[in-house]
């Protein structure tokens, strides 16, 4: 008897740790106006460069200290999370929709649709991505929308490539032929038979892409090409922190930690979800 199906669902530590951090960070971001202890934009030059709470000279209520203009770092981090998550969800979803659809079509239909889509992907991928993003934002103008569009425009190819390969493998399975025998049309087969089987990969990639989107947004902020307003972003915080690294290391380090944990969690969540949703044991 095949013993595969008896494999129990083990409690997946990685999945829960990653999911836990993301939920926590997301909740903070969503509830920022109520949770953040201070106005992230309120300056108070008398309280500039205060260290975090455990150090000497810390001010009660300013837990992670302040930046050179005396703005509360914790509040800025929490508000920065709002933008990070917004970019992550919007840009990754857009890239996923475009990339997966084209990848599915290329992989399943093959022939000339595949040749056209694959060539476009090849050309697209030969631009250096960060430069491409900077160029795009420069053309579109700064702002949240431009950042999201830029990331989606660059990163759909990642979905397209992987999903195309997966769809090709699935299309060669006999159940696809068997659906034709059952009288299903080509598009019906693609959506009902092939798509569910590439879904675990799409979910994993989507999660990974959210992490990547946050990084790209941070890079754009760092080079001052993200949103134009004074709203705090993690990349922007890192850029500011870099200027005062010797006087106030915390302004650089705390946003970096938030960025690092969030991006890592997204990639771990993707892997964990893929395993979770893929009990199929090919």
């Amino acid at each position, binding site marked *: *008897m*095949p013993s*595969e*199906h008896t494999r129990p669902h083990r409690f997946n530590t990685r999945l829960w740790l990653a999911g836990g951090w993301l939920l926590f960070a997301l909740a903070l971001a969503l509830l920022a106006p109520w949770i953040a202890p201070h106005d992230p934009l309120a300056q108070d030059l008398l309280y500039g460069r205060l260290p975090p709470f455990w150090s000497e000279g810390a001010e009660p209520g300013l837990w992670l200290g302040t930046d050179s203009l005396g703005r509360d770092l914790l509040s800025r981090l929490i508000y920065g999370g709002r933008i990070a998550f917004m970019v992550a969800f919007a840009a990754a979803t857009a890239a996923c929709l475009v990339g997966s659809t084209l990848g599915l079509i290329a992989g399943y239909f093959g022939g000339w649709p595949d040749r056209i889509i694959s060539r476009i992907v090849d050309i697209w991928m030969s631009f250096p991505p960060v430069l491409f993003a900077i160029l795009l934002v420069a053309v579109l103008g700064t702002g949240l929308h431009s950042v999201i569009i830029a990331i989606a425009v660059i990163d759909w190819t990642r979905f397209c490539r992987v999903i195309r390969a997966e769809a090709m493998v699935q299309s060669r*399975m*006999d*159940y696809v*032929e*068997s*659906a*034709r*025998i*059952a*009288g*299903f*049309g*080509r598009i019906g087969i693609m959506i009902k*038979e092939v798509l*569910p*089987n590439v879904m675990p990969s799409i979910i994993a990639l989507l999660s990974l892409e959210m992490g990547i989107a946050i990084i790209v947004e941070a890079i754009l902020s760092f080079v001052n090409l993200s949103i134009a307003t004074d709203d705090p972003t993690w990349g922007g915080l890192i850029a500011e922190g870099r200027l005062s690294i010797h006087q106030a290391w915390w302004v650089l380090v705390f946003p970096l930690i938030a960025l690092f944990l969030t991006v890592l969690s997204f990639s771990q969540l993707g892997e964990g979800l893929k395993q979770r949703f893929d*009990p*199929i*044991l*090919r």
Partner: protein
Amino acid sequence: MADPLYSICDLKLSLPDMARKPLFGPAPKIEILKGLSFELPRNAITGIVGESGSGKSTLGRAMVRLLEPTHGSISFDGDDLTHLTESALKPYRRDLQMIFQDPMSSLNPRRTIADIIAAPLRQYGLVDNLPQQIAQALDRVGLPQSFASRYRHELSGGQRQRVGIARALALSPKFVLADEIVSGLDVSTQAQILALLDQLCRQMGLTIAFISHDLSVIRRLCEQVIVLRSGEIVEMGNTSDVFDAPRHDYTRELIAAIPLPEPDTHWLDMETVG
């Protein structure tokens, strides 16, 4: 032959040869089927036997029109299927069913067994009393009702193949193509599936084309046999005639190469014919 189900005349089929595809430009065509003509009698199992490269699977896929012939004609129940488009084929699809070699790959991993069997019924709007129809389909192939809610990975190889048969028969088709359906199975499971197919053929008045590389299995199951080599028919006729008095050297060679389960120290030393 009086009123055959299939009449196939000078069937040729070429496919692109990916192994010789140049870096740029299309792959050259290679002729897999080189002009086959035969008829398939109704309510009988016809064996199609050949070694790898004989074109037997390609022939099967042309018969159920998953592939389009490049030449010749395929007439099914009096209608010409040779060059019908996918949409024109649709009314015929329910009568042209197929059981696959590898049930692992032919059953969608994300669907329950009930779902898999119901799909063709839904597609043709034949759902009447679905639970009962599924129960009947499972019963027909000797699977317990509890299997309806399971997935393919929860089944053994023989059980998966039974699901494949249940799905093919759900629409009560006129014709079923069975492509190497027992070659991955243990002998005891193979014996069960052969007995089942034999019984279903008689009960349901099916016409079956049974593709196999195993002559012993063909002998057990089929009334007629077609021997293929390199896309051409070497010999065809009643199974007992072909086995008892093969007319072609290749058929003799094939038969002589089967190791019978009888100890014989000289068998290996015998030169094969040709």
